[in-house]
């Protein structure tokens, strides 16, 4: 709606200015003008006939728009519109109606599943159910709400299980934490480094590099994971072939617990580096140039400028990158699912993958819900610590 509106406005300005100086209509437009000229672009770059047609159209339009008859009608329309908007009744609740679609969708697809997950985590799931949960009598009709599942209340059993008994969950927690501890610092440092390089004045073809680095974000999760699976294949993968060629020997990328986790770290870093780099680059570009100049005059070296100007100025952006990477890493699923399958011997199974296994392979929906709740708590704690520590203001 908005673009049409502003386009109309600028076209009108264009027309009226042409109307006042009719001489200008006879010449092709010298520079790019708003409104009509925008669609035909510069006369030089398009075929001549098109440019001339635009000028003729322009002239006709401006003649029409400046004619007394047109103006009289337009004024009448404007007055009517003012009258109408004055008589439209004010409905106090109307704004809420306008914003309600979001809340409806939010409630159905986010709020309900969240609350229901918490609810489920105290039950054992026994199977689907068609039984009626409750019936609401609206006199004219009856609304029956079905019981979604057959549930058996188990209290805090699931939580005690995941805390004290489930060694596979502990393994998943360890794996995820390992990936987090290696991957997040690596990605933040790399992201900052690439952003700094791309922000430097002497780099040419910045947009090309920027696009290339940011491109992986646009690739499909499964597609890129599959390619990594092929690249890092221990026997026929290109990576090992290259390593062998330069005399470094093969690395058991997917068959060794340690290297399998490293493979995941590399994959995730490859995909998300560009995203973080773009955010950090945007942050870097908001640092006022004068602060660097002031620091330069104050005697700061390059490193000191980075340390005392760039880093503090970038702090909120860095915090965002760290927190969002943390959340992202704790939710990692597709990469281990496709590349390692959680193996070798559960060395790379992640929490979300474990939830998936519990929920959809073993149909332990209750227990999977409990693990999900635990994950939310864990990520929340991490984020709160980071925000407390990293964002003093």
């Amino acid at each position, binding site marked *: 709606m908005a673009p049409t509106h502003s386009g109309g406005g600028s076209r009108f300005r264009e027309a009226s200015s042409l109307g006042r100086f009719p001489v200008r209509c006879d010449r092709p437009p010298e520079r790019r003008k708003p409104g009509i000229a925008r669609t035909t672009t510069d006369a030089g770059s398009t075929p001549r006939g098109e440019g001339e047609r635009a000028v003729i159209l322009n002239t006709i339009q401006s003649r029409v728009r400046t004619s007394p008859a047109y103006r009289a009608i337009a004024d009448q329309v404007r007055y009517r519109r003012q009258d109408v908007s004055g008589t439209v009744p004010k409905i106090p609740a109307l704004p809420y109606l306008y914003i309600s679609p979001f809340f409806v969708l939010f409630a159905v697809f986010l709020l309900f599943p969240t609350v229901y997950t918490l609810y489920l985590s105290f039950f054992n799931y026994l199977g689907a159910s068609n039984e009626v949960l409750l019936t609401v009598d609206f006199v004219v009709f009856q609304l029956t709400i079905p019981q979604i599942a057959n549930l058996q209340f188990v209290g805090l059993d699931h939580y005690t299980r995941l805390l004290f008994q489930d060694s596979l969950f502990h393994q998943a927690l360890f794996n995820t934490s390992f990936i987090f501890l290696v991957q997040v610092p690596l990605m933040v440092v790399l992201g900052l480094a690439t952003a700094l390089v791309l922000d430097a004045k002497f780099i040419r073809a910045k947009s090309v590099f920027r696009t290339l680095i940011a491109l992986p974000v646009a690739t499909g999760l499964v597609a890129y994971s599959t390619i990594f699976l092929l690249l890092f294949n221990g026997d026929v993968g290109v990576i090992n072939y290259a390593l062998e060629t330069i005399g470094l020997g093969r690395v058991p990328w997917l068959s060794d617990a340690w290297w399998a986790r490293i493979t995941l770290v590399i994959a995730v870093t490859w995909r998300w580096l560009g995203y973080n780099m773009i955010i950090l680059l945007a942050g870097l570009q908001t640092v006022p140039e*004068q602060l660097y*100049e*002031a620091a*330069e005059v*104050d*005697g*700061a070296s390059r490193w000191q400028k980075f340390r005392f100007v760039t880093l503090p*100025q970038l702090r909120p952006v860095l915090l965002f990158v760290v927190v969002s990477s943390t959340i992202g890493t704790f939710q990692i699923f597709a990469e281990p699912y496709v590349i390692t399958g959680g193996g070798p011997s559960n060395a790379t199974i992640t929490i979300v993958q474990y939830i998936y296994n519990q929920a959809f392979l073993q149909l332990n929906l209750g227990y999977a819900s409990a693990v999900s709740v635990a994950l939310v708590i864990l990520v929340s704690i991490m984020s709160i610590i980071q925000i407390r520590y990293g964002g003093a203001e």
Partner: protein
Amino acid sequence: MATIDITKLRKEFGDEGEQIVAVEDLDLTIEDGEFMVFVGPSGCGKTTTLRCVAGLEDVSSGSIEFDGVDVTDQRARERNVAMVFQNYALYPHMTVRKNIGFPLRLSTKQSSDEIDERVEEIATLLGIESLLDDKPKELSGGQQQRVALGRAIIRDPEVFLMDEPLSNLDAKLRSVMRTELQELQQELDVTTAYVTHDQVEAMAMGDRIAILNEGRLQQVGDANEVYRSPTNEFVAGFIGSPSINLVTAEVDGDTLVGPGNFEYVLDDVSWVDGRSRVRVGVRPEDMHLVEDGAGSMPSEVTVVEHMGNENFLYARMGEVDLTARVPSKMRPPEGSRVRFDFDEEDLYLFDVDTQESVKTKTGETDVGYEQYVHNSV
């Protein structure tokens, strides 16, 4: 502290093919301890010159020397200059204490205690000792300005550079800070280059004033000199507020004839020897209202601005607009016909083509205290 020698300074911006010359062949010496003000309209190259002196811009050609040492290729951090920026450029994440102490922390081996002591000393000097633990965003414009000054002076720089430091302040604070800056500069006796677009500020503050236009130095001199003896029409027009009145006149024997029945008979015809046309300049403060029938500038009053202590009369003489400063008691109604006159010693004449000065003020500059007192009585 340091004498600054600028020789044949040239600075171009832009890529090859489409170059903009910001500063062209600028020669200037700023004496040790001098307060030099660079003034000119926007885009005249004054800030670029200052940034070249600071080392924030590479020069295209020419050289800059501090006390005979060529610093042209040195970076800003190697030059021992301090700079106050227009928007202060305080480090937003640091307290006032850290901001002021920052240059010492970077460039000296002083201990933290020594630095703190020095910061407090400077803060007391500037009257901001109670703000030391605040962040810049909690401060008013004037306070930020003082912090920026503090950061500049703490290092005892050889050269002090200020880029329109007062232009973000309101009018009243600006005049207060103007005086403070001058006092501070005199106290520290540091060579200072100061950029402003405000000619009043330039006149009030500078030991000498360098007037630039379109990248070229027009004139260097003290306030009196540039006001009384401008080298060309541009300087005459730029210095003085309201601006000088300028009229193109034909020379007819000993008479200057211009638009709207302007006629002025010269006592000394030698000024216009061999000229058929000349640009005539009269400052608003030199125009007197005279009675009907007399005077050389018959005109019609268009607007009267009451300043309290005086009035500005805006009038039209033919197609030329005139401005006159007259005593506040004189308030002719708008639309009335008036006549102005001026003394020949206050007359400026400029060449029509080159715009160079032909004649500037010739009256005595210093009448002496006794005579002044005598005249006033």
